[in-house]
């Protein structure tokens, strides 16, 4: 079974803090994704990566950056967290992008 692991399930951070959300997949997938999920807005794509050190902006990249130094790991970085970044963050990976596997999500609260 494919496993996509998000290391932090629940985080509470202060405004202005730098936040790292880590995601690891164990199936040698080329593609990895970060979404945020908000009520009434569904999942919105923040960034995706199709190879090591490669990244593409999604719909809402502002306020975020990503890092993909190794194939299995895709990190989402909030350089200076703000309250409007309080959300559920979902990582996903795929080999064939028609089949995407999701992690369990990271609940981030910024106070």
């Amino acid at each position, binding site marked *: 079974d494919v496993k996509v692991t998000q290391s932090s399930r629940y985080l509470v951070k202060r405004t202005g803090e730098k936040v790292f959300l880590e995601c690891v997949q164990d199936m040698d997938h080329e593609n990895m994704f970060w979404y945020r999920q908000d009520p009434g807005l569904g999942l919105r794509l923040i960034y995706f990566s199709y190879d090591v050190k490669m990244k593409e902006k999604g719909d809402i990249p502002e306020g975020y950056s990503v890092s993909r130094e190794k194939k299995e790991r895709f990190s989402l970085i909030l350089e200076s967290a703000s309250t409007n970044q309080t959300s559920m963050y979902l990582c996903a990976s795929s080999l064939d992008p*028609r089949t995407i596997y999701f992690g369990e999500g990271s609940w981030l609260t910024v106070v």
Partner: protein
Amino acid sequence: AQSVSQHNHHVILSEAASLELGCNYSYGGTVNLFWYVQYPGQHLQLLLKYFSGDPLVKGIKGFEAEFIKSKFSFNLRKPSVQWSDTAEYFCAVNARNNNNDMRFGAGTRLTVKP
């Protein structure tokens, strides 16, 4: 880029009622279409997907969806819902020529009353 609209934000049904959740997408090219489900406290799971061929697709747990190209629609159906179908349902689409770009609808919350 492609976009997805789900018209119903919250649907409430009694057990054994029939279900149809609407999904429309906008994109001029060829697409792959998906329905995902998220049960309370759980991660997203794939219900069914359409790539090509028979436009009527059957998924897990008795769900099916029909791709109607002329209407840019991919509605989800189930003839008789159960209390355990209470969940949030997301329609998603990616373009065949840009498979990395998966876009989701806003989701429909389904509540099934026992």
